[in-house]
C-alpha cells in the first residue's frame, strides 16, 4: 500500500528538528506543518514573513497577510515581517535549516527539476531556485511516478533544472531515499511504505540507488 499524501507529510515531518527555521513549498509540502507535533518550528514564507500561523477563521481574512501561495494566513506572537530582499537574504545566506519542496524530477546526482515544462507550463520558478541554492538541507516530496506512470526519480533530469546537486532526501508515496552528502554519495533506499516491495520500487525507479544491508 502506497502512502497517502498525509502519510507522506507525517514522514516528512520526521525531518524536522526542534528549533528549526523551515520553508515549506507550495502544495503537498504545506501539509507537513500539521504534523510538527511538540517540535518548536518557525515557518518562513518567502514573500516576507517568519512565524507563519494557520489559516484565519472565516471572516478574519486579511488581504495584507498571505503566504507564498497567496493564501490568507495568520500571525503568531513570534512573527516578523520583512521585505522580499531581506527574505531571500535569509534564504540565500543559508540561515534556514530546511526546505521541503515538490518536484517533477529528481536525478540520482541530486539535480532537481520542478519549475517548467517547455512549451507547456509557463509559470516561473518563483523562489524555488533561491531556496535550493541557499538552504543546507532540501527534502523533496513527490509522487513516485507521474500521471502517465513514468518514474520521477531518474538517472538524468530531462526537464529544465531548478538546481544542480541540491536534493538530500526524497519522500515518495512508495519509499524514502537519502544520501549522506552532496559530494558524490549515492542515494540509498532507507524506507518503504508498508507492503511495498523492493522489486516494485526498482521497477518504478530509473535512477540508480543503493539499498540497506
Amino acid at each position, binding site marked *: 500500500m502506497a502512502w497517502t499524501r498525509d502519510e507522506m507529510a507525517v514522514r516528512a515531518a520526521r525531518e524536522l528538528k526542534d528549533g528549526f527555521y523551515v520553508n515549506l513549498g507550495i502544495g503537498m509540502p504545506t501539509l507537513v506543518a500539521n504534523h510538527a507535533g511538540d517540535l518548536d518550528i518557525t515557518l518562513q*514564507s*518567502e*514573500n*516576507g*514573513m517568519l512565524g507563519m500561523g*494557520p*489559516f*484565519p*477563521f*472565516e471572516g*478574519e*481574512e*486579511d*488581504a*495584507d*497577510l*498571505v*503566504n507564498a*501561495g*497567496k*493564501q*490568507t*494566513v495568520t*500571525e503568531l506572537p513570534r512573527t516578523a*515581517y*520583512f*521585505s*522580499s*530582499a531581506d*527574505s*531571500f*537574504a535569509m*534564504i*540565500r545566506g543559508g540561515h534556514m535549516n530546511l526546505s521541503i519542496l515538490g518536484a517533477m524530477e529528481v536525478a540520482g546526482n541530486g539535480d532537481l527539476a520542478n519549475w*517548467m515544462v517547455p512549451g507547456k507550463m*509557463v*509559470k*516561473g*520558478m*518563483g*523562489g*524555488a*531556485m*533561491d531556496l535550493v*541554492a*541557499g538552504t543546507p538541507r532540501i527534502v523533496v516530496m513527490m509522487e513516485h511516478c507521474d500521471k502517465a506512470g513514468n518514474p520521477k526519480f531518474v538517472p538524468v533530469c530531462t526537464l*529544465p*533544472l*531548478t*538546481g*544542480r546537486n541540491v536534493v538530500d532526501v526524497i519522500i515518495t508515496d512508495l519509499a524514502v531515499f537519502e544520501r549522506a552528502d552532496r559530494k558524490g554519495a549515492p542515494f540509498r533506499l532507507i524506507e518503504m511504505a508498508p507492503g511495498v516491495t523492493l522489486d516494485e520500487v526498482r521497477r518504478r525507479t530509473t535512477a540508480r540507488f543503493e539499498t540497506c544491508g
Partner: protein
Amino acid sequence: MASKVYPNADAALDGLLFDGMTIVSGGFGLCGIPENSIAAICRAGVKGLTVVSNNAGVDGFGLGLLLEARQVKKMTASYVGENREFERQYLAGELELEFAPQGTLAERIRAGGAGIPGFYTRTGVGTLVAEGKPVMEFDGEPFILERGIVGDLAIVKAWKADRFGNLLFRKTARNFNPMAATAGKITVAEVEEIVADGELDPDCIHTPSVYVQRLFVGSFEKRIEQRTVRKREAA
C-alpha cells in the same frame, strides 16, 4: 519645497509616462500592489512598456489590465501563473518574458536602487537562468553575475505615509515595495492614509522619504487571490 502630495493617481503620474519606458512595481501576487497607479497607467494608454514585477497580476486586475490592453512589451518576473492572457500572449510570441528567480529579482531591484550595477549569486547556477551570464568562482564555487535594475518609474503601495514621503508598509503587503521604491528614477507611492507630521515613529519607518517623489491616497480593492480559512472549533 513643492508638495509631494497629489490628489489622485492620474495627477501623480501626470508628465511621467512615455512609450517604451521601464516601470518597476511593488507587490506579491495581488498583495500590496499599486492598484491605483496601474489603473491610471492603463487609462493613460502608454505602450511598449517593460514591466519589472514579481508577478503579472491576474486576468482583469493588477498588471493583468496592462497586459489585456497590450501595453506591455516585456515582463521581468519570477512567477506568472494565474494569468491566462499572459500565457496566451507569451506562447503566441507577442510578449517578451524574462524569468528571474524571486530572490535574484528582489536583489536586482535592491542593487539597482543602491547604485550597484551587478552582483554574484549562487542562485540559478547550472540552469537556464545562467545562460549567457558571466560565471566567477569564489572559494572554489561557481556564481553567476546578475544585473541591478533601475526603472524610469517605480510604483509602490504603502499603508501609511507622512506628507514628506516616509512610508510604512503593513504585514506581507511590504514584499517588493521597499526595494521598488529605491529603484525608480521617479517613485510614486500610493497609500491608504497620510498621517499628521510626527505621527510616524522615526525608528519604525520602512522607506525613508528621499526615495519617494510623489504620493497620493488611493482607494483599494485589495483583492484576495486564495481565500483560505479554518473552521472554528465548536464551543
